[in-house]
C-alpha cells in the first residue's frame, strides 16, 4: 500500500494579513458549518480511491484552521478516518494563529489525535507585526506555546519571516532568538515575497524593504544560529530538531503522494497533479450538486517526473542523486552534473560522494541553479543511458 498525505484546506481567517494572497476570507458560524459538511462529503467521496493507500500524514492548513472551531476540525478528521485507512503513527498537524487558540481547544485537538501544531509567529517585533497586518503579539505566541505544552503537544512549530518592511538584521535575529527561547521542535523561516494584489504590494517603494543582500545576510545568519541551537536544516526554509521534520511537507519535496481537500487545494495522486476550484461558495455548491470541482489537472509523464525530482529535490538538504536520475529515471546525468559542478566552484553546491545538494548560499539562489539544472535536463533528454550501460553521445 502506498503512503498518502491528506491536506485539508480551511479558507477562513478572522482577519486578512497584508502580505497574504492565499485563498481565504472571513466567514460566519453558519458558513463554517456548511463548509465543514461539504468537506466531509468530499472526503467520503474519495473512499472509492482510498483502498490503495495508507494515510501517514494529515495536515490542516489555511487560512486559519482554528477559525472554524475545534469541533468542526475534529468532525473533518473523523471523516478522514472513516474514508481512509490511517496509519497508527500518523502525523496530524494543525496550523493556528497564536491568538486564535484556547487551552481548552488545544486540549480537545490533542485528545482527538492532533499531535503537531504550527503557529504563525512571523516576528517578535510589535511594529513589524503591525505592518504585516498580524493581530497578535509576541506575548500571545508565548501563551499559545505554553498552552500547547500543557495540552501535551510534543511537536510544536513556529513560522518566522525575514525581509520584512524596515526590518534590520538585528531585529530579525532578536525575533529568531525569541522563537528559539520558546523551544519549539520545528522552525520555518520564510522570506517575505510581495504578491501581486496584496495590500503590501501596492506601494512597495514606501516599505523600506531590506535589500537582497541584507536579506541574504539574514538568511545565512538564521541558518548558522539555528544549526548552533540544534535545528537541522532539511529544506530551504525549514529547520527541525532531530526526528521532528514535517513529514507531511516532506512529501511535497520528495514526490510523495498527497490529496488536498477544499477550495484551491493541490494534490498529487498517482501520476496526476490536480487542484480544486478556488471559490469557497462554488466549492460548497459543487459538493451539493455533485458538480465539477477540478480547476486544473495534469498527468505527469516520465520526463516531467524527472524534472520534478530535480526541482523539488534540490530544495531539500538531502539533495539529488545521479544514481536515482540514471537508474530510476533513466536520464543522462552528465550535463546536469556539469551545472552542479559550475556552482560548486562558487560555493553554491556540495557533493558528499553520493548526493548533490545546495549549500545555504546555494539555497538563496536556488531558482537560478534549479533553472540551469532543468535546462541541462532538457538538453540531455535525447541522450539515453540504459541501466548499467555506458553508451555515450560521442
Amino acid at each position, binding site marked *: 500500500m502506498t503512503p498518502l498525505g491528506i491536506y485539508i484546506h480551511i479558507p477562513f481567517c478572522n482577519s486578512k494579513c497584508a502580505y497574504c494572497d492565499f485563498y481565504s476570507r472571513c466567514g460566519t458560524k453558519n458558513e463554517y458549518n456548511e463548509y465543514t459538511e461539504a468537506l466531509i462529503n468530499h472526503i467520503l467521496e474519495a473512499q472509492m480511491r482510498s483502498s490503495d493507500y495508507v494515510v501517514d500524514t494529515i495536515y490542516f*492548513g489555511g487560512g486559519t484552521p482554528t477559525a472554524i472551531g475545534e469541533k468542526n476540525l475534529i468532525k473533518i478528521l473523523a471523516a478522514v478516518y472513516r474514508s481512509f485507512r490511517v496509519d497508527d503513527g500518523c502525523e496530524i498537524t494543525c496550523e493556528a494563529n497564536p491568538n486564535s487558540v484556547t487551552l481548552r481547544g488545544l486540549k480537545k485537538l490533542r485528545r482527538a489525535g492532533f499531535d503537531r501544531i504550527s503557529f504563525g509567529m512571523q516576528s517578535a517585533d510589535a511594529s513589524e507585526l503591525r505592518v504585516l497586518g498580524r493581530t497578535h503579539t509576541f506575548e500571545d505566541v508565548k501563551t499559545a506555546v505554553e498552552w500547547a505544552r500543557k495540552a501535551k503537544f510534543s511537536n510544536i512549530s513556529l513560522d518566522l519571516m525575514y525581509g520584512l518592511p524596515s526590518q534590520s538584521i538585528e531585529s530579525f535575529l532578536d525575533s529568531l532568538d525569541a522563537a528559539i527561547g520558546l523551544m519549539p521542535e520545528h522552525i520555518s523561516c520564510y522570506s517575505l515575497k510581495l504578491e501581486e494584489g496584496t495590500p503590501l504590494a501596492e506601494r512597495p517603494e514606501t516599505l523600506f524593504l531590506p535589500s*537582497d543582500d541584507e536579506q541574504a545576510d539574514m538568511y545565512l545568519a538564521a541558518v548558522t544560529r539555528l544549526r548552533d541551537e540544534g535545528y537541522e536544516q532539511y529544506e*530551504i526554509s525549514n529547520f527541525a530538531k532531530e526526528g521532528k521534520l514535517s513529514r507531511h511537507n516532506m512529501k511535497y519535496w520528495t514526490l510523495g503522494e498527497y490529496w488536498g481537500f477544499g477550495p484551491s487545494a493541490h494534490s498529487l495522486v498517482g501520476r496526476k497533479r490536480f*487542484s480544486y476550484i478556488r471559490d469557497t461558495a462554488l466549492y460548497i455548491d459543487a459538493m451539493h450538486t455533485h458538480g465539477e470541482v477540478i480547476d486544473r489537472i495534469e498527468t505527469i509523464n516520465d520526463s516531467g517526473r524527472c524534472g520534478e525530482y530535480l*526541482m523539488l529535490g534540490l530544495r531539500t538538504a538531502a539533495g539529488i542523486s545521479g544514481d536515482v536520475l540514471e537508474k530510476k529515471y533513466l536520464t543522462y546525468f552528465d550535463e546536469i552534473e556539469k551545472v552542479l559542478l559550475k556552482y560548486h566552484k562558487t560555493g553554491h553546491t556540495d557533493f558528499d560522494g553520493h548526493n548533490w545538494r545546495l549549500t545555504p548560499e546555494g539555497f538563496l*539562489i536556488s531558482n*537560478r541553479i*534549479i533553472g540551469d539544472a532543468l535546462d541541462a535536463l532538457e538538453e540531455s533528454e535525447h541522450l539515453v543511458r540504459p541501466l548499467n550501460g555506458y553508451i555515450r553521445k560521442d
Partner: protein
Amino acid sequence: MAKKENIRNFCIIAHIDHGKSTLADRLLEHCNAVTEREMENQLLDDMDLERERGITIKARAVRLDYLADDGETYVLNLIDTPGHVDFNYEVSRSLAACEGALLVVDASQGIEAQTLANTYLAIEHDLEVLPVINKIDLPSADPERVKGEIEDIIGIPADEAPAISAKMGINIHDVLEYAVKYIPAPKGSEKDPLRAIIFDSRYDSYRGVIVYLRVMEGEIRPGMKIKLMASGAEFEVVETGYMLPRGEKKTDVLSAGEVGFFTASIKNVTDTQVGDTVTGYDNPASEPLPGYRTVRPMVFSGVYPADGAKYPDLRDALDKLKLNDASLTYEPESSAALGFGFRCGFLGLLHMEVIQERLEREYNLDLITTAPSVIYKVKKTDGEILQITNPLNYPNPSEIEWAEEPFVAASIISPTEYIGNIMELCQERRGEYKDTKYLDQTRVELHYNLPLNEIIYDFFDALKSKTRGYASLDYELSGYRKSDLVKLDILLNGDPVDALSFIVHSEKAYARARRLAEKLKEHIPRQLFEIPIQATIGSKIIARETVKALRKDVLAKCYGGDITRKKKLLEKQKEGKKRMRNLGSVEVPQDAFMAVLKLDE
C-alpha cells in the same frame, strides 16, 4: 495621348499631419477615379508603416481625368512626395517632375519648418506654389491668419487660396479648378531627343524594376533602346504606361509633358537611381537634366539577428528591401558580442527606423542594433585618410593627425515661448547658434549648426519633449569640421564588448560614459560573481559601475503542495535566459544593447 496644354503635373507639399494624404484621396474621389466602395483611406500611402506614421516614404504618381468648369477635360498627374527630411533628395526629384505644387497648410497650426523647407525647394525648382488652407472644420481654425502668414513668410499670394476641409470633403472642387487655372501646362517638344527624369522606382518580381518618370522632351515607346545618362546603363523598353489609383494603363508612347512608367527587364533598382536622366540610345540628348546626385547614406548602424541562426534570413530580407530602396546600403560585418550581421547605411534616423521596423514586421526578424554612427573622416599620421562608419575601425589616438565630423545646418520652428528650451538643448548638443528669425509675433525660426552625431541620439525626442511637441525640425548636411573626437569602449568583467563602442566628442565622453555605465548596470542582471562595468578611452577608465554578485533568488514556499507557481517561475526564467547573450563570462540581455541607444530616458 493627352493634349499637352491640358496636362497639369503637380505635387502636394505639407507638414506631417497637415492632411496631404487625405487631400490626395479627396482629389481622387472627386475625379471619380475611385468609387466609394473602392475607397480605402489614403490610397497613395500603401505601406502599412506609412499609414501608421502618417508619412509618405516612397513617392508615387497617379493620373486623373478631370472635367473642369470650362468644359475641357484635363489630365492631372498627382505626384506624391516623401514627407520627411531624410528623403529631401527624393522630394527634390519629385518636384523636378512637376510644374506646380499645392502647399497644404493646417488652418490652426500654420507654417512649420518642414513646410518651409519643401516650399523653398519648390520655389527653387520654379514651381507654381499654390497654397491651400486645410482643416477649416477645426474649432481652432483661423484661415485668414494663416493666409497672412503665408504671404508674410513665404511671400506668395494667398488671397485666392481655397479654404478646405479634406477630411469633411469641403471645397475640394475649388482646389481642382484652382490647380487647372494656375498650374502651367508642361513645355518641351516631343520632337527633341528624349530626356526624362526618374523620380521613383519599384521592383516587381515578374516585370523587373518599374521606373517612374516624367518625360521632359521627346518620346519613349516600347521597343526603344534607352540609356541612363548618369549610370550609363542601357535597356530596351518593354512597356510604357501610367498609373491609375487602382492599377495602371499601358500606352504606346509617353511624350513630352507626360508622367508615367516604363519597364525594361531591369533587375536592380540601383541601376535606376532617382534623379537620373533617361535618353534615347540612338538619338541621345547632349546634356542630362540638372540636379542629379548619388544619394549617400548619412547614418550607420550594425544590424544583427537576435538569433544568430537567422543571419541568412536577415541577408535575404535586406536583399529584398534593397530591390526597392536604392538608398539603403549594407555590408557584412561581425562582432564578437553579436555574431554575424550587417553594417547598414541609412539616409537618416527615420529611414533607419523604417528599415528596422520593416525587417522586423515584414520579415519577422528579431534584431539587435548598435548605436547609430555617422561617417567620420580621420587623417592618420602616416597620411592615410579614413572614412569611418564603424567605431571599431577608429584608429588609436596616437595614430591620428586630425579627425572631422559631419555638421548639419538645422532650422527649428517653434512657438516663441520655447526659445529658451531649444537653445539650451542645442547648446547641450554642441550646437553653434547662427540666427533667429521671427516669423510672426508668436513663432520663431532658429538656425543652428549642429554636429550630425548629436542629432542621431534622440534629438527629435528631446526637442519634442522640450517644446511639448510644437517645434519642427529640418536639416541638411553642411560639411565636415575638425573635431576633438574619442572612441569610447565598454569593458564587462575586463573584456571589451565591441558592439558597445562608439565615437563621441571628448567633452561629452565623461557624461555619456557615466550614463552608459549606469544604464548597463540597470539592465545586466546580477550573476554569480561581481561584474565591473568600465568605460574607457584608450587605456584610461573614465567611468565605472559594478553589478554586484547575485545573492538571493529564491521562492521560499511551496505552499500546500502547489508547485505550479514554481514551475511557472522557472519557465519565465527560461524565457529570460533565451534573450541573453554570452559575452565571455558575462550574460547580457539583448535589451541592454537597445537600452544604451536611449541614454536620456
